[in-house]
């Protein structure tokens, strides 16, 4: 057969892989398989503009109508991959169809952990556009929302819900929400922001369970102490698990997602990108799986180009962001421990600043608060350092 690249998963990472195949001048045919039906969409707006209702859902589309038409002949939507035979190089989808591949890109993403509450009326998770629509509808006239989990998703939903006037309780197991990813200072600024906007922040507490009333409808949330919080809506945002169930029998190396080398190769002819992918670090020991939007684009495109035999893009320092209320928070590179952080732009108690993390005077990462333009310069510097390290084979200062 002619060469065929099959990309399983039609989110940002899968589409970036298609983009890489095309840009790299891939000589074979390609097929994109997506579980959901219709236009591929972007996820970051789901917890913000789409949930707030300020954007029509079509604004979250990843493609223009013209681009979607161009993709159509190569897009099998509404189909979930259910099995992989690596010896015969065949993917089986839930409609029973089998597809041969020469290269397979696994981009199946992650699914939210539901804490076993998915049958309870009023308990939601947020991952898909359908989830966002359903949560959006539930926010209308909501009496009390409890967000379980104070990570980015939970915090963003709390901010959005406050924006539409819904009373919110934010429940987070850690005593210092977000401190692990943003550092103590910025994390406490975010928590203050939530408190100032009227969010009831309960840090250091877990959900004990839910109390349901008639027809299995949610009535209240029990905490891990004796407290009970009245709630007609709960969002469970305690994290996700990689969607690798269909690969369990395949022999593809699975460990916290699909384990890959530093170029995204999991096995001969098999690649993984995006949230599901656990890549070997290019500049140090170990592996890293990151559920960040930017990684999806970078890994997807890079693997698409690799399959096409085209030159690979330069490595880039990791980057992620969160927008909450009027704060735009961006992180690039690797943030070290709190004592390694110092201000390099603005005043950290003001409304625009950048903190940088240093290890032996070498900058390892930066975090910006409403300082997007300044951040770009630091990112250029971090990218340059990374390229030099990869060329010389030196490990990262921080790892």
């Amino acid at each position, binding site marked *: 057969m002619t060469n065929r690249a099959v990309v399983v998963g039609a989110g940002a990472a899968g589409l970036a892989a298609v983009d890489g195949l095309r840009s790299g001048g891939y000589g074979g045919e390609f097929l994109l398989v997506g579980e959901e039906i219709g236009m591929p969409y972007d996820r970051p707006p789901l917890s913000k503009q789409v949930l707030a209702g300020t954007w029509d859902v079509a*604004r979250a589309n990843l493609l223009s109508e013209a681009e979607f038409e161009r993709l159509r002949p190569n897009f099998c939507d509404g189909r979930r991959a259910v099995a992989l035979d690596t010896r015969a190089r065949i993917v089986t989808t839930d409609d029973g169809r089998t597809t041969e591949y020469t290269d397979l890109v696994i981009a199946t993403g992650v699914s939210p952990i539901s804490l076993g509450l998915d049958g309870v009326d009023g308990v939601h998770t947020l991952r898909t556009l359908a989830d966002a629509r359903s949560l959006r509808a539930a926010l209308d006239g909501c009496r009390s929302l409890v967000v379980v989990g104070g990570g980015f998703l939970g915090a963003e939903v709390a901010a959005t819900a406050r924006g539409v006037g819904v009373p919110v309780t934010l429940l987070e197991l850690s005593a210092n929400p977000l401190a692990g990813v943003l550092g103590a200072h910025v994390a406490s600024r975010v928590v203050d922001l939530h408190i100032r906007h009227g969010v009831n922040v309960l840090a250091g507490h877990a959900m004990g369970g839910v109390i349901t009333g008639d027809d299995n409808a949610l009535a209240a949330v029990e905490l891990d102490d004796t407290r009970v919080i009245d709630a007609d809506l709960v969002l469970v945002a305690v994290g996700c698990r990689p969607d690798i169930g269909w690969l369990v029998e395949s022999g593809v190396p699975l460990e916290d997602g699909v384990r890959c080398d530093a170029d995204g190769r999991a096995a001969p002819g098999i690649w993984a990108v995006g949230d599901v992918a656990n890549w070997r670090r290019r500049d140090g020991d170990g592996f890293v799986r990151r559920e960040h939007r930017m990684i999806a684009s970078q890994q997807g495109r890079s693997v698409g180009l690799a399959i096409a035999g085209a030159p690979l893009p330069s490595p880039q320092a990791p980057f992620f*962001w969160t*927008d909450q209320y009027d704060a735009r928070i961006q992180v690039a590179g690797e943030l070290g421990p709190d004592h390694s952080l110092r201000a390099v732009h603005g005043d950290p108690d003001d409304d625009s600043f950048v903190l940088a993390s240093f290890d032996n005077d070498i900058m390892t990462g930066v975090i910006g608060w409403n300082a997007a*333009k300044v951040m*770009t310069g630091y990112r250029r510097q971090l990218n340059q350092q990374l390229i030099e390290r990869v060329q010389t084979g030196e490990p990262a200062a921080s790892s």
Partner: protein
Amino acid sequence: MRIKTDTEKCIASGACVLACPEVFDQDDDGIVTLIDPSPPDALYDKVMEAAAACPASVIHVEP
């Protein structure tokens, strides 16, 4: 080539500036601005790289 940007969707990542500083810049809030909306064809690959790098699908390139 002609470049269009949907600035309302821009999340100020600066990815475009890192990929192609000849064409893209940021305003004080970090939102994308165009130095040259009709750049020379010699920049085509870099512009396409910028469009691909954008994590919010803000950049559209027309031939």
